[in-house]
Structure formats: C-alpha cells, structure tokens
C-alpha cells in the first residue's frame, strides 16, 4: 500500500505530490503502524521524526466528545461483513467477525458475529420477562431485576456458529479469514447459572429436557438436555462488562458453553422443562448433520477442537522476508486447549507452538511461533489438541467420516498458501 502510494507519487509535480502524499498517508494510516517500513522516503510534510505531527502541537477534543466511546476513525475498516449470496435477505442472515484484526481472546461486543432468524428485536427491558414452567415445582415469571438479585456468575467462553466454515466442505471457497472462520467470538458473559434457576423453581420427577425460546419474531427454540442445563449453562444479561448488545440477545440470552451457538438462544423469554425433546425446526430441518449414507446426526451440540492461523492470512499478508511471529486461535467445546502445532510445509513436519496468555476451558486460546520466512512459497497449517486428547482432524478424515453435505461442525486443519509475493490464499491440500 505505502509502496504503491510512494510509486504513484513519483509521477506527480512537486506541489501535487506533497498533497498526494499527505492524502495517501492519511489513507494508509491504518497500515503504517503495522507495516513499519516504507514511511521514510519523504517526511517533509508529515509528522515523522524529526518533524512533529499536528496532533502533538494542538488540542484534541475534550471529555464527553464521545460519551460512549468508539474506535479511532483510522480503524473504520474493522467491521463485521457478510457474504450476500449466503442467505435470501439480511433479516434471517449472518455476518462475520473480522478475526484478522483482533488480538487477545476477547471479541469486542461490537464485532461479535451476528446470526438472526427474524432480525434484531427492539426489546424494552421493563417489558421483558423470563417465564420458567413445565415440569417444575413453582412456575415463575422473572424480571431482569429478579435475575440480577440472584448470585452472579461470569465466565469467558467462545461462541461459534456450527456452520462456521461450512462453505468449505466441498472445497476452498472463501478467500478471507473473516469468511472462513468468522462466525466465532469469545466474550466474558455474566448472568445466573441455569442450574440456580432450576434449583430455585424445583424439578419434577422425569424432567429431562429444557426448551429455550427467544422473544424475537422467529421465537427461536432449542431443546437442551437437563445435563447441560445443570452443568454450566448460563442465563446471561451482561457481555464484556456491559448489558448485552441487542445483536447478542439484549436483555437476556442463554449461553451453552462449548456448544453450537444456535442453542444459546438470544432474547430469551421462556424456559420450559419437559421429559422429552421437542424436535423443533432448528433441531431437525436445521442444525442436524447429514452424512454420506443419507442419515443425519441429531443433537450434535459440541463444537469440537479447532484452530486457525490469524496472522498471516489473506487480509494480513507478509511484506518482506524475515522473522515473523505466526499467530492464531485455538478452541474446543470440550475443555482447555492442551497444545497447538504448526506446519509450514503442508503437514509433513510440525513444530509445537506456544500457548499465550489465558488458557481457559471452552474459550479462545492464543498461540504463536516465531518463524523465518525465506521468501519462498509455503503451506501454513495449525493443528490443535484439547485436554481430552482429541487431535484436530484433516479434511480427508472428516470427509471420509461424513461426506461433504454436513454443512455443520467442520473443524478441519486449515491451510493458508503463502505465495512468494507475501500474499496468502485459502487452499485445501492432500
């Protein structure tokens, strides 16, 4: 980018050139900080050393210029994006988290991928209620205040749509990390354990399932086994320290840690306890995994161990040969990540990566490994292992077990092809 700006600037008359460079540098501002090269050629008009930039010689806006803060305008490219042809419209659709732009394990609330079946309801919290009934001792209607009075639990857990990467079953199709893996996020969720609520209302004999239902126009509903409800399911009112975002279920949602995102019903209005599953549309027609023999897995809840390299990637190419820290994310719906290995030769040889920062159960986990790029082509892969010993599988293994029509739960080892010019593309290899 900067090279391009500089090269095109060479062709212009001096005065025009200064103007061009000024504008060009504003445009390239987002890249400048990360690239660290190319900015030294013509610094007369900019604020690079020995000059002092304009913002160092003036006042900035004061407090409350943005009562609810927002990112720098130079980061305005960090947004959710969609794939228009995936869905019939944007009301029942999905958008993707820009994983290439994120560091650490927490996804900012504004960037958590969206998945709606009837758009985002505009819910007045004063008018919102959680009804718990069915095979319980005392059917209740709870307000948000009631829920906030109960013991609060916070947990950092990933949330992933089971269709994440589903476009890749038949072959590499999406040429950006945002679209190959972006139905993925990780937040701190705060609320009341569902087990606390069920204990509070009391369960009748033979209770075995809980139906969770949303207050949106689709009344999204899923049957959740009581084992999960009594284990770590959380009825959530806060996300990353503030009230849930409307896109994420404001004012109340369910979080089933480690399970496919669809079961974590948003805009939660009702929990019904029963002795059998309900077999609603989202657990029969959808969110079942069709296999090669024509049969389908049902109640395939767990998001199995998965990983992806987030730097470099198609959105973040390498600029020159030399040493880089290769970085990525690993996660498992069955617990903690125990190790991640990286390959640069398409899976012939592997090197253990370092796990960085917090390694939490059912949370995104950071890994990295320093690597010297010699400027040649390479095939970059990551392979995660979770604490159950499960090793992230290859495409070949997944396809041989399931065929190519499953849509959901694709967790294959992913390959980035690094080209000699430093660009990366999504490929599948054998």
């Amino acid at each position, binding site marked *: 980018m900067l090279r391009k700006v500089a090269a095109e600037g060479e062709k212009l008359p001096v005065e025009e050139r200064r103007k061009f460079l000024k504008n060009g540098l504003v445009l390239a501002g987002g890249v400048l900080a990360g690239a660290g090269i190319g900015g030294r050629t013509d610094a007369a008009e900019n604020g690079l050393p020995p000059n002092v930039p304009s913002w160092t010689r003036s006042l900035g806006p004061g407090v409350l210029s943005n009562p609810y803060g927002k990112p720098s305008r130079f980061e305005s490219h960090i947004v959710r994006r969609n794939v228009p042809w995936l869905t019939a419209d944007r009301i029942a659709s999905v958008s993707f988290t820009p994983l290439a732009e994120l560091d650490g394990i927490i996804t900012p609330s504004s960037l958590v991928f969206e998945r709606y079946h009837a758009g985002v309801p505009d819910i007045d919290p004063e008018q919102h209620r959680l009804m718990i009934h069915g095979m319980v001792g005392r059917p209740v209607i709870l307000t948000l205040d009631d829920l906030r009075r109960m013991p609060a639990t916070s947990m950092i857990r990933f949330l992933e749509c089971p269709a994440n990467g589903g476009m890749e079953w038949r072959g590499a199709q999406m040429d950006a990390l945002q679209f190959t893996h972006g139905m993925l996020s990780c937040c701190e969720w705060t609320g009341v354990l569902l087990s606390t609520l069920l204990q509070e209302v009391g369960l009748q004999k033979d209770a075995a399932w809980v139906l969770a239902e949303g207050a949106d126009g689709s009344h999204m509903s899923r049957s959740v086994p009581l084992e999960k409800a009594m284990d770590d399911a959380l009825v959530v009112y806060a996300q990353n320290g503030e009230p849930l975002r409307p896109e994420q279920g404001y004012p109340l949602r369910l979080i089933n840690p480690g399970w496919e995102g669809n079961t974590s019903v948003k805009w939660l209005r009702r929990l019904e306890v029963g002795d*059998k599953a309900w077999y*609603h549309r989202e657990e029969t027609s959808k969110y079942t995994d069709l296999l090669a023999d024509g049969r389908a897995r049902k109640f395939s809840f767990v998001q199995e161990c998965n990983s992806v390299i987030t730097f470099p990637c198609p959105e973040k190419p390498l600029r020159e040969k030399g040493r880089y820290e290769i970085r990525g994310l690993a996660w498992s719906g069955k617990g903690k990540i125990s190790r991640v290995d990286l390959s640069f030769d398409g899976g012939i040889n592997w090197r253990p990566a370092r796990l960085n920062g917090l390694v939490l159960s059912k949370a995104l986990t950071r890994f990295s490994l320093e690597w010297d790029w010699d400027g040649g082509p390479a095939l970059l892969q990551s392979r995660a292992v979770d604490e159950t010993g499960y090793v992230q*599988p290859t495409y070949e293994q997944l396809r041989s077990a399931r065929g190519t029509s499953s849509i959901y*739960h694709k967790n294959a080892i992913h390959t980035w092809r690094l080209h000699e010019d430093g660009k990366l593309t999504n490929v599948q290899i054998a």
Partner: protein
Amino acid sequence: MSRLLSTARISCTAMIFAVASYGCVGDDQTDESRATVAELNSPDIRPAGHYGYGLDASPEEIAGWDIDIRPDGVGLPEGSGTAEGGEMLYENQCASCHGSFGEGVGRYPVLSGGEGSLTEARPEKTVGSFWPYASTLWDYIHRAMPYTEPESLNDDEVYAITAYVLYLNDLVDYDFELTRHNLTGIEMPNRDGFYVDDRPDVNNELCMQNCKELGSVRITSEPEAAESDSDPADKAVVVPTLAGETVYQQACALCHAAGLADAPVPGNNEDWSERLTLGRNVMLENVLSGKGAMPPQGGLARFSDADVAAAVDFMLSQSRN
C-alpha cells in the same frame, strides 16, 4: 411471606439438589424432606424457593406464551384444516418466498421435492425428504410464519397450511382434514433418518515428523477469486470523511462554542445574521484561508478541505433557525 410458605410445599427438590442430582420424587413429600440447617448454611445447597423472587406464573399467563408442539402431539390446540382450505392461504401468505409448489424462490427454503436425494452430491432437504415429524411443521408455521408477521395465523389456518404443505409433498390428499388428533399419526418418510450424535468420529494422530512423503503434498482446491490480483489489505483500508460535528468539536468548538476572539457562536443568530449574507462559499473560503484570529483551516492542518466544509455546514445548520 405467603410466597415463602407456599414454596415450602415443593421442598422435595431441596433434598434432591442436596445430593447434586436433578431428578425428583413425587408430589406427596412432606416436611421431613425440608433441608437441614447444615444444608442451608452450605453455599452450594439451597432448597427450592430459597430466593423466592418473581411472580407465580398463572395458567393464563403460561398459555399465552406456551406455544411449543412436540412429536407426540403435546401442545397441539383444538382445530382443523384441509389441504384444500390451505391452498389459498398458502398462495397468499407463503408462495412469494416458498413458491407455489414449495419449490422455493431465490434462496428461500424449498419445502417440497427432494425425495431420495439425501445421498446425492447436492441433497435437497425438504419437509418431505428430510423432516422427521409433522409436528415440527405445525410448530414452525405457528411460531415463525408468515415471515413478516409471525403468530398472525389462527390455529385453524395453521392446520390448513400445514395440511397443504404436506399435500405438496404427496403425504396427504387434497381433501385431507388435519386435526389435533390425526397429526401425530402422519408418518414422515425420513422419520428414521436421524440418530443421536456419536462423535468423535475421527481420530487424527499427533504426528510431528515426516507425516507425509516429501513431494506428495498437492493443492486440491483454491477459491476461484484467488487468481485475481486484488490485494485484500488494500481493500480493507477505507477512511471516510469525518462528520461535520466531529470536526467542529475537535477544531472549532474551543473558540466558537465560547465566542472567544469574536468567533460567532453556532445557534446565536445575532452573531450569524450578517455573516450569513456572505453565503456559504465565502465563509468556507475564509475558514480555509484564515480570517481575523482564525488561522487557516481553523488551525488544524490535518483536516481535509472536505472535513472543513463539513464543519462549516454543521455550524451553519445550527445557526439558520
């Protein structure tokens, strides 16, 4: 207080939770199953009704929200409808997305056909070819359809449309009348096509060295767009023009909001009346080149001309009324 007393009646659950189980016993438990003092003092063991928050849900309140239907028919209301009766309803309420024959319009769901396609390369998962239970159809139409107006159909209409979609899949006759009593008897073709998740179904090895033969690695697929020379990093950088108010707050407000050095205050008509006669372009030129105490571009060279113009327009918009 009365609530706490009433919840004591279900204290059977307290004992059950005390042993970290979620099963329960019958309704005839009496006071001897109350939690002991020791149990109450444990932070992890609380009897049902420990908090007592919320209101008891009345049967009427529950009925208004309890819309779920199960394959065994639990939840189905009284009512009926024929496929014939559902045809016009379907045509008016459903066909614009799902097609007159359930064939689907654009990317909206296909409802019919696809029989025998589940093992094909491009399976067509429809009500007839894939859905295991007819109850799911009734539940979903009532729950979420019509798309733009969910819960607007009455129960008879839901029975009629359900019957019509079943008819489109050759599962009932045109004159078939669907009711609460015969819906569970409809056998869907793929009712036995599902089994409970049995993963893990793959077992990769933790190989570290020479896991494949050298030279054996080949690329099997690549996105078509990979051939283009577009640079995603270039595409990603788009810095829009600042909103006028933002520029004003950063560059202009320090003087203009307080009226320092005779700077006109936005919204103060006395300050602006004479200046407004100059017209926008003259004022913009004055800001860009500087005037009086005001330096060129309001003193902030980092703003583009367009940013400055946006700020001027913002200030004018505050001052014209």
